[in-house]
C-alpha cells in the first residue's frame, strides 16, 4: 500500500499528489514514469514522475481528470492509500547521462502543453540543479488551466506563457510563440524538448524540423504492464516498432509517426465512454435497446 502524503488541486481538473514510495523515489530520474493502481478493481494508470524526494521517500504525480479512473483518483484524500505504485518505468531522459559541460553549451527550450507542464518540471529542475539555464514555454487553453507557474519560474531561465484565448501571456499556440522567438527575437535553440498532447507535439515537431532544431518528445500511448510484456504501447519511430514503456517514453520527435500514435491512443474511447455513462446514469444505462452493450 502506498500512502498519499500530500494532495493539492492545481487547476479545475488538475491534481498533484505526493506518494510514499521509497524504492521508486530512490531510483527515479527525469523522463521516467510510474504506474498507479488504485484498488483491487482498478486499472493500471501510467503517470509521469513530476518530482521526487529521495530523503522523504516520496514521488510527486500530477494528473488531469479525463475519464473514469482519473476522476476516481481525484477523490482520494491525504492519508489514504493506493494499492499499487510501481516504477520508475521507462528510460531516463538522455541528458541525464550527457556530459554536463557539453550540456551547458547548448541552448535548450522546453515546451510544455497543458498537464504536460508537470512532466517538464522535473527536467527543468534537474537542469537548474546542474547550473544550466533553459527556456520554457508553457502553453495552455486559458489562464485558469495554467499550472506550476511559480514552481517553473523558480527553475527556468526565461519562462514564456502562451494561452489560446490570450487571457494571460502570449495569445496563440506554442508553435506561434516558438516561431516568433526564433524569427522575431533571434533566439537560437540547439534542442527542443516538447511534452504535451500528442497533437501539440506533432505540430511542434513539424515546425522544429523546418527550423532544423533536434526535438525530443515524450509519448503517452495506451499501456498495460509498462514492462515490455504486452506491446500495447507500440509506436513507430523511424519505421521501427518500439515499445514506448521500455524503449521510451522519450523519442526523437522528428522520427515519430504521430498519426499512427494518435489513432492508437483513441483505441479504448468507446469502452471508456460506456464506463462513464454507467457512472453517470447508474443502472438505467442498461436499458433495452442500448447498443453500447
Amino acid at each position: 500500500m502506498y500512502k498519499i502524503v500530500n494532495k493539492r488541486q492545481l487547476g479545475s481538473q488538475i491534481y498533484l499528489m505526493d506518494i510514499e514510495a521509497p524504492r521508486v523515489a530512490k531510483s527515479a530520474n527525469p523522463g521516467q514514469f510510474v504506474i498507479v493502481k488504485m484498488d483491487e478493481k482498478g486499472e493500471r494508470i501510467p503517470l509521469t514522475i513530476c518530482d521526487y524526494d529521495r530523503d522523504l521517500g516520496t514521488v510527486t504525480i500530477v494528473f488531469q481528470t479525463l475519464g473514469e479512473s482519473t476522476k476516481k483518483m481525484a477523490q482520494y484524500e491525504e492519508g489514504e492509500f493506493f494499492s499499487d505504485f510501481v516504477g520508475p518505468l521507462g528510460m531516463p531522459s538522455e541528458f541525464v547521462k550527457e556530459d554536463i559541460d557539453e550540456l551547458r553549451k547548448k541552448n535548450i527550450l522546453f515546451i510544455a502543453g497543458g498537464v504536460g507542464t508537470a512532466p517538464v518540471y522535473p527536467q527543468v529542475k534537474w537542469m537548474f540543479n546542474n547550473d544550466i539555464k533553459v527556456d520554457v514555454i508553457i502553453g495552455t487553453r486559458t489562464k485558469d488551466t495554467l499550472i506550476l507557474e511559480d514552481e517553473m519560474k523558480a527553475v527556468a531561465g526565461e519562462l514564456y506563457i502562451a494561452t489560446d484565448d490570450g487571457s494571460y501571456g502570449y495569445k496563440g499556440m506554442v508553435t506561434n510563440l516558438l516561431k516568433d522567438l526564433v524569427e522575431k527575437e533571434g533566439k537560437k535553440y540547439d534542442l527542443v524538448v516538447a511534452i504535451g498532447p500528442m497533437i501539440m507535439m506533432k505540430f511542434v515537431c513539424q515546425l522544429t524540423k523546418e527550423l532544423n532544431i533536434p526535438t525530443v518528445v515524450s509519448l503517452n500511448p495506451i499501456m498495460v504492464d509498462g514492462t515490455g510484456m504486452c506491446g500495447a504501447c507500440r509506436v513507430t519511430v523511424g519505421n521501427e516498432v518500439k515499445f514506448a514503456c521500455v524503449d521510451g517514453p522519450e523519442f526523437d520527435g522528428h522520427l515519430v509517426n504521430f498519426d499512427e500514435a494518435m489513432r492508437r491512443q483513441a483505441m479504448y474511447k468507446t469502452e471508456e465512454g460506456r464506463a462513464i455513462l454507467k457512472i453517470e446514469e447508474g443502472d438505467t444505462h442498461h436499458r433495452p435497446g442500448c447498443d453500447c452493450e
Partner: protein
Amino acid sequence: MAVDRMVRTPISEQDPKVRATNFDEVCLGYTEEEAIKEASRCLNCKKPLCVSQCPVTIDIPTFIQYVKEGEFEKAARTIAQASALPAVCGRVCPQEVQCEGKCVLGIKGESVAIGKLERFVADWARENNIDLNETKEKNGKKVAVIGSGPAGLTCAGDLAKLGYEVTIFEALHEPGGVLIYGIPEFRLPKDTVVKHEIDNVKKLGVKIETNVIVGRTVTIDSLLEDEGYDAVFIGSGAGLPKFMGIPGENSNGVFSANEFLTRSNLMKAYIDDYATPIKVGKKVAVVGGGNVAMDAARTALRLGAEVHIVYRRSESELPARVEEIHHAKEEGVIFDLLTNPVEILADENGWVTGMKCVKMELGEPDASGRRRPMEVAGSEFIMDVDTVIMSLGTSPNPLITSTTEGLKTNKWQCIVADEETGLTSRDRVYAGGDAVSGAATVILAMGAGKKAAKAIDDFLSKN
C-alpha cells in the same frame, strides 16, 4: 471393483455449449470414487517409465497406490516431496508427452490419467487443509528471487524450507507469473488453485514484494551489494511478445496474445466492475497454433466473438496440447489451417477491417523436422475480421540482462546458465525457467527452480 484396465475412467467436464459462455473451469475433476477407480488401473510397475518422463520425478506409482487405498493425505505427501505446485501441474502439464506418454498401459490401451489423479490429490489436500510444509530452522542467510512464476516460487519455497530468508521481487501487482496473467481462469482457477499455491509458499516464510522491477526499481547489483542478499535467482520468464512485421500490424484491433490475456486474466477485464477495458470485436483471428493461441482464442470466444485460429502448417503440426485443441474445437473455435497472414487492412481511422492471407502447402521437412510450409501461388484472399491477436511466441525481456554487467545471454536473449545448477556467468547469480530456456512449460520451470535452490544451498552452506 471391476475395472477395464485398458480404458480410462471418464472425467466430467462442463458442457461445451455452456462453458463457451462462461469462465468457470472446463474440467470438473474426479470424485473420490472415480479417482480410486482410475488409480486401480495402475500396474505399480517395478521400473516405472512414467516417472522417467516427469521433469521433477514424482514417485508416481507410490502416490497412485495411496489413492487406490483411499489414503489421500499420504498421496499428497508423496507428491509434495517432489513438487510444490501439483494442483497446477496436474492441470497444465503436457502429460501426453511426459509422464502419461510413457505409461505402459498406453501401449495397448489408454495410459493412466496421472495428471488428473495428481490434480485430484492436490485439490483434496487443499480442501482438507492439509499442511504439507516442513521447514528447518532459519540459517540467517538471505536469497533474493526475481519473478514469482513457477520457477521463482519453487526456488523460493525450497530455499525457505532449508532455512533461508527469501524475498521474491515481482514486477507486476500480483504474484504468479504466467499462472496469473497468461493461463485463463477456465483452465486454471486463480482464487482457489493459484492463490492457494502462492499462500503455501508464503506460509513457508517467503516474503513477496510486488511492484518491484529489477532493472528499474532495483538492480541485481544493488540487491547483492546494498541490500545484503547472499545470492540471487532470476526466474523472470520469457514475456516479450513477437509480432510478424507485416504491414498494418499496428492498426487498432491488433493485439499480442499477452496483452489480450493480461487484460482478461490479470486485470479481470471480463468481469463487469473491473476498470480495465478489453476489445474483442465480432470476428477474431488468432494467429498461431500453440497453447497461448488456444487460450487467447477460447477467451475471445467467451467474450462473445466468432473466433478463427489461423495457422500456417497443418493440424498435425499444431504445437498446442491435444486436449486444448479438442476443447477449443468442441467450443466452436474455427481452425483455418495452412493459412498465413501477409497484411492487415484498416479503415481511415486505423481500425482493422480484414486480414489478407495466403494459402500454404507443406513441402520437404525443414531444420525443425517439420514439413516446411510454402505459399501457394495466386492463393491470396481476404479474411473478414475486425480483431487480430498475434500469438507467435515470446522471448526473454532484456530489462534485467541489459542492466546487469557480465550477465551472459545467447542469441535468443536467453540467460546462459549451467543446466545442473542454474549458475550464470555472474558469481552468486543463478537463473532458470523460461528466462533461460525460452518459452517452455510450467514443470520445466519448476524443475529449474528446484535445481537452482539445491545449488544455491550447496554454495551458501560452504561459504
